[in-house]
C-alpha cells in the first residue's frame, strides 16, 4: 500500500509561562491510501495535537516543531499557511467529538452545508449544490434529507447531527478524514451506527481515516491498524487483530485491562499512577513509573522493535529477560 501520510520523528513543544512542554516526543506514524488507522491513548497523550499538526491547525507562535510530516508528497511542516488552508476541508477533513458543538445553531443545516460546498467550488449553482447535499445526506442513511436540511442543529438528534457532520466532511471526497473521538458524546447504539456508516463510506470513497479514541474497544471493529500512544510517543503499533490477540507493550495490556468485560462481573483493573508530567520527561520509557515490569535499563532511550508489521517500544521486546 502506498503511504498517504508519513510522519517521522515528529516533535512538538509548547512554550508556556512555566517553561517548554514537550507534547510530542518523536511520533512515527504512517497511514496508507484508503487505510483506517486508529490512534489510541489517554487524555494528554498527544493524540489530538497530532491531528491538529496534520491539519495545520496549531498556532504559529509559541510552538516549536521538528521532524518530517509528508502528506501526499508535500512537506506539511515547511509549507506556507496558504497551502495548508487550501488543503484543509478539501484533501484532509475532520470530524470533532461533539456534533452539537461543531454545528452553528443560528444557521440551518442547508446554509452550513452550502457554505462548505461553495468553498470547494465557487462556481457551483444553487441547484447543483442542492442535489449534491441531498445525495450526501442519503449516503449517510438519512431517509428525509429535505427535512434535515431545513432544520437547525438543535432540532436534530445527536445521531443525526453526527451524520450531517460526516456527510459534510466527506463531500469533498477527501484523501484523509481525521475523526477526533467521534460519537463519544453520543449514545452507544448511535455511536455504533455512526461507525458503521463511516466504515462503509470510507470503503466506497477510498478515504483513509485517522481515528482518534481513548477506548480500545471502540476501534476494534473499525480500524485496520491500531497505534497506541503514550506521553507523546507511539508505544505499540500493529494490525488490529494482532494487537488484540497479542498485545506486547505493558501499557497496551494495562489499557485493555481497564475496559469492563461482558464476560465477567469483576471490576476492570485500573492503571495505577497518572499520566506523566510532560515538562519533566527524560528520553527513557515514559511508562516506567507505572509499569510493573520496569527495570533500571528502562531509563535509557527505548528503540522501536519491529517484526511483521508489529512495532513495540519496550525494552523487554528488544532484550527479552
Amino acid at each position, binding site marked *: 500500500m502506498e503511504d498517504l501520510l508519513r510522519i517521522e520523528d515528529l516533535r512538538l513543544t509548547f512554550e508556556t509561562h512555566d517553561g517548554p512542554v514537550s507534547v510530542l516526543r518523536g511520533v512515527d506514524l504512517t497511514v496508507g491510501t484508503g487505510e483506517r488507522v486508529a490512534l489510541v491513548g489517554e487524555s494528554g497523550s498527544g493524540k489530538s495535537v497530532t491531528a491538529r499538526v496534520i491539519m495545520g491547525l496549531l498556532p504559529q507562535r509559541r510552538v516549536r516543531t521538528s521532524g518530517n510530516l509528508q502528506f501526499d508528497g508535500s512537506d506539511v511542516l515547511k509549507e506556507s499557511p496558504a497551502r495548508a488552508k487550501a488543503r484543509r476541508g478539501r484533501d484532509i477533513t475532520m470530524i470533532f467529538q461533539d456534533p452539537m458543538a461543531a454545528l452553528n445553531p443560528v444557521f440551518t443545516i442547508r446554509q452550513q452545508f452550502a457554505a462548505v460546498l461553495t468553498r470547494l467550488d465557487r462556481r457551483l449553482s444553487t441547484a447543483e449544490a442542492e442535489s449534491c447535499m441531498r445525495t450526501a445526506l442519503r449516503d449517510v442513511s438519512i431517509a428525509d434529507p429535505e427535512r434535515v436540511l431545513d432544520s437547525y442543529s438543535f432540532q436534530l438528534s445527536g*445521531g443525526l447531527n453526527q451524520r450531517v457532520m460526516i456527510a459534510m466532511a466527506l463531500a469533498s471526497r477527501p484523501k484523509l478524514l481525521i475523526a477526533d473521538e467521534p460519537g463519544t458524546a453520543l449514545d452507544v447504539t448511535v455511536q455504533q451506527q455512526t461507525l458503521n456508516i463511516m466504515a462503509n463510506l470510507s470503503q466506497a470513497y477510498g478515504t483513509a481515516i485517522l481515528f482518534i479514541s481513548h477506548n480500545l474497544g471502540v476501534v*476494534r471493529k473499525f480500524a485496520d491498524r491500531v497505534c497506541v500512544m503514550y506521553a507523546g510517543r507511539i508505544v505499540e503499533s500493529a494490525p488490529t487483530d494482532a494487537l488484540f490477540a497479542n498485545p506486547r507493550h505493558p501499557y497496551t495490556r494495562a489499557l485493555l485491562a481497564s475496559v469492563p468485560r461482558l*464476560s465477567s462481573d469483576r471490576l476492570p483493573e485500573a492503571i495505577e499512577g497518572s499520566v506523566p508530567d510532560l515538562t519533566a520527561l527524560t528520553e527513557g520509557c515514559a511508562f516506567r513509573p507505572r509499569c510493573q515490569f520496569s527495570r533500571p535499563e528502562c531509563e535509557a532511550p527505548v528503540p522501536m522493535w519491529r517484526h511483521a508489521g508489529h512495532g513495540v517500544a519496550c525494552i523487554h521486546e528488544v532484550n527479552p529477560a
Partner: protein
Amino acid sequence: MSEPLLQIREAAKTFHVGSSEVKALKGVNLSVGKGETVAIVGESGSGKTTLANLILGIEKPSAGEIVLAGRPLSGRRSKADRRQIGLVQQNPYSTLNPRKSIGQAIGLPLSVHNVCRRSERRRRIGELLEKVGLHPELQDRRPLALSGGQRQRVAIARALATDPELLVLDEPTSSLDVSVQAHILRLLKDLQEELGLTYLFITHDLSVVRVLASRVIVMYRGLVVEEGAVADVFSGPRHRYTQQLLASIPTVSAEDDRLKPDWSWEADVDSTEVAEEGCPFRPRCPFALPACAAGTPVLAGPKHHLHACLNPGGAATRKSSLELLAGQ
C-alpha cells in the same frame, strides 16, 4: 430482596412545551433495596434523567408517588428529606465552580445542613477527601488544578457530605477516560461496602452496569421495557432494544464478542420517527410484528426477569428470528 429503601409507584411526568405535551415518563414502577445497586439504562430521551430528577425532588411527578424508607416524599422536600439523597453528576468539569476552592464546594452542603460546627468543618472536609482517595490538603486548591478523575472524586465526596443513604449516580464515568473510569468504579464499589450505600446508577453504557450493578432496568421513551438481575439480562436479553444496547458495547476480546447478541445494523435507517401508539421501539425494530402497533406491550415474564416485547429474543429463539428476518 432486602427491605426496599426507595419505591416508585406509577411515576409519570408530562412536560408542557408551548401547546404540545411531552410525556417523559409514562408510569414507571421501581423498587431499590437497601445496600443494592440498581442500574437504569437507556439512551437520551428515555426518561432516565427525568426519573432521577423526580427522586431528587428537582421535578414534581405528574402522577404516582415516591417512597423513601417507608415515608412518601412530597413535592416540597424538607431539609431532612434532602439530606437522605446524594447526587453525582456526569461532567465534573461543569459541576464544580471554577472560582470556588474544593473545600468550599464540599463545605457548602455541610453548612446548609448544619452537619458539623464551623470549627470542625475543615477537618470534616479533609476526612471526606481521604475517603475518596484524595489528599486532605487538596481542599485549598481550585478545580482547575485537578484532573478529570480527581474532580469526579471531589464530586463524590461532596455527595457524601450529608451522610446520605441513597446516591443517585448520573453517568458518573461517561466523560472520563477508560483508565480513569476503572479507578472511579473501584472507588464506588469500595465506598458501598464501607458505608452500606444504596446506588441508583443511571447510564447509557451497559458495559459499566455489568461490574457495578446487581439489577438493571432498561428504559425506552419513558417506559420500562426490561427489568431483571444483571446476570440474567446480560446472558439472555429479551427485549429487542436491550439486545441492540448489548450489541453496541465496544468489546475487546473474542470471548466477549460471543456474548453479544447478533444485531443487523443495516436494518436501522432513520430512527427519529416517534410511535404514538404501540411499542415505542417499533419504528427502529427489525423484528416488529403488526401486533406491535396495536397497544403498548406490558411487562411480563418471570418475576426476576420481566420484559415488554411481543416478539422477544432469547438464547433459544435468537437464531431462528434472525433467519426469519433474512427470509422476509
